[in-house]
């Protein structure tokens, strides 16, 4: 029975929410809102479960003295401190804001800065193992967009920012992006339909 319970719930709820999107009038709208709210609650609970999973992984790392166990210990300590302060002081407390400003914000911005180096290196290395026409075209397009994104110091290339870059960005790139997005949308549509008809079960089970 449990083998069929999950698909039944998934299919029924999915169909109701889908219909509720199109049928805004009537009972289905309320059902859809209710299911969505339940999904939101479950997502929040899943965050709690995920945090527990995170703790178990890093505790195991510490217990087995694996490589990086010290960082796992630091992670667990930070998590506990932040969780305690947040529960006690509240999320809007200045302390929490200071923790965010001091830890999360600079870390993520630093990672983004590293991305700049990574992407430059990737651009340099692209033709090393992918020396075909498409790769050359890709690099050329990237260079054109970069040149048109900002004027050069001390001088400016004429027509680059006014004509060439908008063509590349607003016409070529945008049209290609739209085509890709259409395909992605179709793929997402069929993926969702597979779940709705029970052909695909991402929630586990054979």
């Amino acid at each position, binding site marked *: 029975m449990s083998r069929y319970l999950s698909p039944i719930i998934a299919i029924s709820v999915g169909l109701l929410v889908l219909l509720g999107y199109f049928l805004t009038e009537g009972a289905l709208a309320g059902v859809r*809102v209710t299911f*969505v*709210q339940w*999904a*939101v609650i479950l*997502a*929040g609970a899943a965050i709690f479960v995920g945090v527990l999973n995170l703790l178990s992984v890093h505790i195991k790392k510490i217990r087995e003295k694996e490589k990086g166990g010290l960082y796992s210990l630091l992670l667990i300590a930070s998590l506990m401190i932040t969780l305690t302060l947040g529960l006690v002081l509240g*999320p*809007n407390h200045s302390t*929490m*804001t200071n923790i*965010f*400003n001091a830890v*999360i*914000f600079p870390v*993520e*911005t630093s*990672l*983004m800065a590293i991305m*700049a*180096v990574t992407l*430059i*290196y990737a*651009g*340099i*290395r*692209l*033709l*090393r*193992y992918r*020396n075909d026409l498409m790769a*050359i075209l890709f*690099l050329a397009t*990237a*260079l054109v967009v*970069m*040149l048109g*994104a*900002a*004027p*050069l*110091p*001390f001088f*400016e290339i004429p027509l680059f*920012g*006014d004509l060439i870059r908008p063509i590349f*960005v*607003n016409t070529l*790139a*945008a049209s290609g*992006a*739209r085509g890709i*997005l259409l395909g992605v949308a179709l793929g997402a549509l069929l993926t969702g339909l597979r779940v709705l008809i029970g052909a695909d079960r991402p929630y586990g089970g054979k």
Partner: protein
Amino acid sequence: MVETINCPVCGEVNPIELVDCNKCGRLLRQTTSELDGVGELINSGQIPTEKKTSELEMALPAWLRGAREGDKDDETTKTSDDSSLDSLSSPPPQAKESAPTKAAPLDWLAGLDNDDDEDEEEAADWLVNIQDNLPIEIESEEEVPVGIPASEEPITATEAPRPSDEEEPPLQTGELPGWLSDLQGESADGNFEAMSDLLSQKSSAAPKDVIDEGGFEGDDNLDWLSKLSKEADAISSYEETPSVHPDSLSTTDPDSPDFKEADSLPDWMGDLRPAGEVSTNETSPSIPIDEFSAQLSGESDASPISSLAEESRPLITRDDLPDWLSSEKEASSEDKGQPEQTPIAASDLPDWMTESAEELPAEESVGESLTPSSDDLPDWIASNSSEDNPAERADQVDDFLTEDALEMEALTQEQASQKESVPSLDMAVDADENKISSAIKAELPDWISEMGQPATGSPPESTDEVSIPAFTEVEEPDLVASLPTVEGIDEEKETEDAPAPGTPLVEDNVFSSSTDENVDEIFGNETPDWLSSLDPTDEDLAEEEPDDIVPKVDGNLSGGELPGWVQAMRPVGTALSDPSAGSGESDNVTAESGPLAGLSGILPSGLDLGQINKPMAHSLKLNVSESQQSSATILEGLLASESKPGSFKPQTKYSSIPVVRWLIAALLFLIVGSSLLSQSHMTPSPNIVVPEIRDTIEIINQLPEAGSALLVFDYEAAFSGEMHAVAAPLIDHLMLRGEKLVILSTLPTGPALAEHFLVETQSSHNYQRNDEYLNLGYLPGGPSGILSFITSPRIAITGKVDGTSVWDFPPLASVATLSDFSVVIVMTADVEKGRAWVEQSTIPLGETGSPPLLMAVSAQAEPILYPYYASGQVDGLVSGLSGGATYERLQGQSGLGRKYWDSYSVGLLLAEILIAVGAMVNLLAALKVRQARNKDEG
């Protein structure tokens, strides 16, 4: 239709009436057709009809029939000892001169003749009896099963042949088959004892006793076997390797009182006896075979022969020995009625296996110790000691031959009444070389005569010994001496004063380890390494006294490579060593060397070929041609390559170059950082006025005052560097208009990020929390949450701040639905977030009077979100740092846009240069590699 038959050889079609093929001349039918009416061909599944063995004689080859006919003639005549000796000593050509039908007395193939029903036994009885727990029935006629003779019993395919009623009891181990003993005639009856007798310790009966008692006869009896038994009885000590000969040489009745126990046994037989057993009467201890093997292999320190004197565990009983090896005399009186496992007494050993009882005063002691005479030891053992005591050996040989001849006739007569025709160990023990008459010796084949010769070549001179025991307690042969010795060897060595034992049956030099070639000659190329590698000059042997050659244990037997049945059939070497013994008086061909040494009536090797030579040693190596060798090499290589893992070509991996990364980072830090710090304004502000920015400015300028603007912070902290520069002028413009701010985020970090943004960029406006701006926090559910908030904000957001409903605060006091907001500004770096807000709010915001929708997005999201602006779904769009800088310029402000603009421009230029140069270098390198690859492939 004419019936035809296909030739089995050439396939020619022949008429069925033909016997031979017209084309190839081969028989068209199976050889069984030679039976000619004796029997029909048997088809599969058909039970063969019972036939008499005698009826199948015609199926034998002609040469075999002839030999049997000759055996028949020999059996009927009782020759003297000389003639019997002649059968052994006569050279092969001489034997060939005689009619083939007149086979030599030692025609062991004559067993096919079923004329003699009395002595016929099962062909393989002696083999069958090579088992333990077989009762010794040689002496008991009562044990003979009643029934038709086995020879006349038809042999069917469905049942095994059963022993005949008239047959003698099954042969013991080493016992000659009945057909073999039949050759000896009636006089040979009883000469043969079970092979197990060989393992028993015999009294020191001279080998000649064996001979005299019925060893060699003029007929085709296997007198030489009887000699062995007598020799075993006679010989009690050995100085040389005792000769091993079957009791067929001896016609001594095992039960006759003339049988003397052999005090010594051949080494290979003596080793099988426990070393400590010295009893000559009742007990016949045996040596554990395992120990014997261990001793021979060198695992034990004790010499196998000497160690036998210490063992007292009877493992091989009398039952295990052939009759001709065991003393019939002792067996009849002692072993009769005893259980099957009765150990073999020394007296049971044939004479030739024991020292001479008369000539050797130490016979009894030897018998106790059961040290076989070196003469009776196989040559491969005796030769080891031949070098040390050649004179003694020569004397022993002479004695053996002399005595053997004298005793032969006596043995023949005594054994005639016996039905058993197995060699007797007693006979072998009693056999004495000295007893062998010269005539007999002359008849002996040269190869047998040679075996009796000592290493020095001089035959034994002494013929005074009555019997030459087969095993005498003489010096340990070199072969045996090389074997490790054990401690506690019975020190009763009497071989010092003991006369030389009988001449060994086998030439000393044959088994001499110093002459490996001889060993190889006897055994062909199959000589075990341990046998051929034994050094007669081993120090151990040198240190050993001659008497220590054989163990002083009753019944011990030294090991030998020849099978027992071959050993049993070998005539006494001393009987053949006398050159005058066989001086051509007999026409029978007697083998002088080899496995058939001493056997008469063998097939001659050829006319005028002289002495029968041993067969050529053929190499076991295959003659491989070069092409075959090359093919084999190729095959071997193929097979070897199968086991080897194939070479795996790993996927091409491009290693990372950390130096380049560090270089790029360093350049960026240097250039961008310096530009940021310098604030040189070397790069002009963007002066392109894009419509989306202009529309945004116009919309904000048209907002009602003191309204509430909904700000959605849906970008990650990682994008705050750009997004702050993009959104700051817009928010600043909005705050300058006096709009209250309602902050919302669909990301967990959004609310905190918004607070940070306001602190970092809008601190100049000094907006107060919950008064000028309200942070609603996190909106869960993603698009569903967005839709929920857009539809009914008060339901979607029910949170309280400090115990007060958020909808009570001034920023939301007049807001009930989304339309109540003055403007909705979505700030995001994610395309999906922007799309979600746009798509979810299009319908509610598309209505008339709905607030405008503005977006401040990252440059990476601009291509995807711009169409929304183009389609009118988004009223204004500010994207990227350039948009922010443009907005600032249009507002006449100087903010983060202008601050970052120079660094942004320089950084972009640096990145462009690095990418362009690096790409060109890598492209050229890749092209070069491709050219090289193409060149190699080309």
